[in-house]
């Protein structure tokens, strides 16, 4: 019988001790923590370096990057090379997995420390980088899958999931 209540009192001792401890809350909008070096924020593109290789567009699991490409002699070498006239990153779809950053051969797409994206319309979250805007609602061509045994006779079904 003397043990009854001991555990409860011990637990209440824990809570009363915490009552007088220092608070650990950080008041967010006033106080901003230093982000670590590797922190993955919103993406940005250095269009001067982009060679329009479309690697990032292909690897992106969410198809959030759309690039409009055309052949143009941009550096004056007299040879027409691929050039990204339109480049859109749709932040409403991006999941910050950093695959595009790793795959880029010229390191022109990279993460910033910016992470507070907000808009009243999802279309506003699509950020344009090129000289010509790209429609973010049109899907970039998904990666073509080579199916060895692919035989699609069944009618097309609409995805719901």
């Amino acid at each position, binding site marked *: 019988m003397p043990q009854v209540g001991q555990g409860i009192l011990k637990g209440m001792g824990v809570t009363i001790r915490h009552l007088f401890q220092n608070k650990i809350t950080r008041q967010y909008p006033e106080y901003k923590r230093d*982000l670590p070096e590797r922190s993955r924020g919103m993406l940005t593109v250095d269009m001067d370096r982009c060679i329009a290789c479309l690697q990032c567009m292909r690897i992106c699991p969410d198809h959030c990057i759309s690039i409009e490409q055309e052949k143009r002699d941009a550096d004056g070498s007299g040879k027409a090379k691929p050039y990204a006239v339109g480049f859109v990153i749709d932040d409403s779809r991006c999941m910050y997995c950093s695959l595009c950053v790793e795959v880029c051969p010229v390191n022109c797409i990279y993460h910033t420390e910016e992470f507070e994206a907000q808009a009243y319309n999802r279309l506003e979250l699509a950020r344009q980088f090129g000289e010509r805007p790209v429609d973010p609602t049109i899907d970039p061509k998904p990666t073509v899958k080579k199916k060895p045994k692919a035989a699609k006779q069944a009618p097309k079904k609409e995805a719901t999931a």
Partner: protein
Amino acid sequence: MLSEERRVEQQSALTEPAAARLAAPDVRDEFGLETIDMSMGPQHPAMHGLLRLILELDGETVVRCDPVMGYLHRCQEKIAENRMYPAVIPLTDRLDYFANMHNEHGYVLAVEDLLDVEVPPRAEYIRVLMSELMRLASHIPSIGFLMLELGAFTPILYAFRERERIQTIFEAVTGARMMFHYIRIGGVKADLPPDIPQKIWDYIEGLESRFQNDFVDLIQGNEIFISRTRGVGKMTQEKAVEMGLTGPPLRCTGVDFDLRRDYPYSIYPELEFDVITDTAGDVEASYRIRIAECLQSIRLIKQCLEKMPEGAVMGDLGRRLRPKEGDGFGRVESPRGEFAVHIVSDGSDTPYRVHYRDPSFCNMQLLQEVVPGHYLPDIMPIMGLIDPVSGGWDK
């Protein structure tokens, strides 16, 4: 695709017992009293994620419990069929969002099983280090959730304070707080930052005493906690094995099974740790197991930090992954049990079929079996025993 007539035929023929039960008239006892039907969830505030339980109550006693799932179903397996092998890893993060590292590890092990790639030892150590930190970050809040379900609000906030600190470490290492995308095919994304081992060490040193002060003292001897959990959700070893349980729900009945020891992967054979078992098989036992496993994780993290070799963290891979045809299996001990991945490859750069075996999904079958006969408030501690995660069972 089944034809319409065939589907109807199947459903009527194969689900006869279920249909008969559903069509049965309301049963009244000798006083002419009916049972109450109640739908708990999916927007129930205390439910773990999006789960709906169709309950039949006789007063406060549960007569029937029928879980309905699919409210968070994203068809991850179908999406994975259309992604290249490396691009599936960030999606596995979204499966069991309290054990992201384990999901990545399991998937990566399955791909490496197909590829026969050599993983550098330093990368293996970092993987285990991160997995064990993740286990801490999952077990501590799950203790808090159990207390939240019993009506005590305070432990969950102490638990999330600890999780927050672990997440800060993860952020410095991987760049993200929850969706890490850190463990890669053939190694890990990047080496640890130079100051991180010391930070982890400092954190772990402080954690042991905080663990005793904040959780064990607050919860362990509490009479109300004991009376609410002892004997609740009681199951036998046979039942647990039959229902295919793994992880703490299996170990709390006394079955000595841990994938880290019995199906060794990564560098676990080189490390020392104990597999914790308990014989009671109730909610309190699972709580004790989680507490003890946290201490084992601390032990493993210390060993990893001490033994960590130098060297590269990424194996040699081709630019485009095209594994050979066949089956690849990967299984890891996630905080909830056995997380297994089965990949069927057809030789192209996307998987032909990916199947996830999630511990939350399999352990949840227990609900149908164990809940009937308990009181309504006991459902929540039993959920705390299983500790399912919505992203896990719904894939």
